[in-house]
């Protein structure tokens, strides 16, 4: 097919509309805009592409590496020899960290919720009177009176697992605690259900100011952060009520 040479110049030219000449399609010809049904080949090409495009990544532990370096975050002594590994480590463990209790969260959203529900005494006060426990699913604006109600909602409405890791029970152990005996609230990474997942890396997060509370779920591995940190009503009053976030850029 031979195209007129001026066509390419027209493409590169300014936008414009042709002044309609009286040469028009005859409506009697009957071909108005139509939906094209038999479009097989375009679909076939699309699927061949999906199948062929092997997104190649370099996950092989034997791949070329860089000289060992240590994570620079205070208290972390994890060593790496590949940048991608460090990136993921950093985002997982240092990015959304609660500056009160050092727990790490997978997202800013969950961190915010945690700080609000665990470390904000104003929240506790308000929660006695109104629905404060926000649904954890992004886009859902429902709020609940108790964290247990919220969990119920997560399971029945959003089909979340009942043992969703980021919504674990927190046992409140202060002296006279008004409200429900067991607060269920967003909980961090670091709470492994399987006791045997003792983790050498946890040593780096141990904060000497944290009292290892004896609790029913105390792990036998001394280096781990206790699975439930009880601040209770008394302890939380010792912190400022304004949100503090460990912001890493």
């Amino acid at each position, binding site marked *: 097919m031979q*195209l007129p040479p001026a*066509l390419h110049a027209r493409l590169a030219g300014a936008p414009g509309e042709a002044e309609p*000449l009286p040469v028009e399609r005859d409506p009697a010809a009957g071909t108005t*805009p*139509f939906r094209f049904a038999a*479009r097989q080949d375009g679909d076939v090409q699309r699927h061949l592409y999906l199948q062929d495009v092997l997104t*190649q990544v370099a996950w092989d532990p034997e791949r070329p590496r860089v000289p060992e370096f240590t994570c620079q975050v205070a208290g972390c002594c994890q060593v790496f020899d590949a940048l991608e590994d460090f990136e993921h480590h950093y985002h997982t463990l240092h990015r959304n960290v609660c500056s009160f209790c050092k727990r*790490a969260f997978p997202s800013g959203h969950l961190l915010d919720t945690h700080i609000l529900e665990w470390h904000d005494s104003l929240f506790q006060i308000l929660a006695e009177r109104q629905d404060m426990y926000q649904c954890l699913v992004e886009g859902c604006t429902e709020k609940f009176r108790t964290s247990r109600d919220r969990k119920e909602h997560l399971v029945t409405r959003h089909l979340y697992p009942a043992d969703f890791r980021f919504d674990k029970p927190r046992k409140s152990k202060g002296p006279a605690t008004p409200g429900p005996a067991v607060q269920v609230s967003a909980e961090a990474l670091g709470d492994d259900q399987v006791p045997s997942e003792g983790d050498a890396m946890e040593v780096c997060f141990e904060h000497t100011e944290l009292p290892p509370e004896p609790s029913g779920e105390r792990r036998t591995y001394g280096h781990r952060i206790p699975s439930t940190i009880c601040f209770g009503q008394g302890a939380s009053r010792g912190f400022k009520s304004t949100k503090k976030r460990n912001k890493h850029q």
Partner: protein
Amino acid sequence: MRLHHVEPTAAPPQAVELRGEELRCRRREREAALRKARREQQLVSKRLLRDEDPEKAEGYVAVILGEAEIQQFLRLAQRGTEEKEREKALVSLRRGLQHPETQQAFIRLEGSIRTLVGLLTSNQALLQLEAARCLHELSHSEQSTVAEACLPATSYLLTYLSGHSSDFIELCLYTLGNLIVESEAVRRQLLPQGIVPALAACIQSPHLTVLEALGYALSQLLQAKEAPEKIIPSVLGSPLPQHMLQLLQPGPKLNLGVAVEFAWCLHYIICSQVNNALLITHGALSTLGLLLLDLAGAVQRTEDAGLELLACPVLRCLSNLLTEAAVEAVGEQMQLRDERVVAALFILLQFFLQKQPSLLPEGLWLLNNLTANSPSFCTSLLSLDLIEPLLQLLSVSNVVSVLVGPLLPSLLDTLAFSDTEVVGQSLELLQLLFLYQPGAVQAFLQQSGLQALQRHEEVAQLQDRVRALQQTAQHG
């Protein structure tokens, strides 16, 4: 970008011919299988991230692991004392999971998914990553039982989409996309778990790899048979459509891999006809029109493979949107009026003729829809000298005769005018028409063409052309 087409590997000279033929043959077989699947409405394809080197892939065979071995690796990953040991165990598991038999053994083993999910959500970042890679292999299975076995992991995969580790998010997205296309049970769980808002939040990522993965996952979601009722309305109600259109805007930031995925997303949405008027008010027509211009420019400049992958959905989206009544209702900026679109289309038609003839009908379909209600675009065909190229396409496509059909009556009409310029041009076009479509002569005679010509027999400027036409019409 880590996009990688599987290319034929280098081979000693005498083997090249055979290898090339073998690959072409295999490709033809795959195309035939895909066509068959499409006819039976069973077209399911997935994407895979893997660390194999395609050059080595030929000889690589995934090791089949039995239940006992799988259990051993899982135990080691979970309870090993050495970090490296735990990682290596998961890597071995992951390699084994490349094989369907290992996948089956894995899902048969009690507690295996639970353990894997435990590792996925552990505080050991690298174990988390490897566990996710294992899940990804499982997601690639063609057995829906394997996909459904991964259900306990989905809430976590979605949670991790709001994180920051781009490689990890990319992995989760491809995994989700694969699971989505495999099983309706998976979709029935993911929707209430909030996949649409999660994807909407993710589309703001600055990482191209994440965006491409997101486009892929979304395209799988939008193709579901229940999509028009259950999925597309909430997608249209989210910020997704505006962001999609932004990602399709031509310019230095346009990324081919990303654009391909979102163009297909748009195509599935438009086909569903849930609310195309909304897309038009978001400027879909002008965005896609500009993208078409960009594509035409690109095909002139480069031998780049893959442009037709984007051209196809763009053509379809434009063609379908042009059938919407809403087109008339929107303001001028939102409409498609720029005649450069016609120029671009013909440049693409020429490209298709050479590289992908199967796309010609789709391009001509767009041409039909462009000219159907637009005298201006019809005029552009003339003013840009495109009638002859169009007629040249008569031999390759029946669709052209549909387009060309109305040409004769229109040209006959113009013979009634007195403007010599216009008439002269029409005479030349008639000559071309007779050249490419001999059948037009009969129609011309039947529609009193000769009488129409008589008017101009004495006009000096037109005489020669008139006589030539009379000759052709009467003597063939």
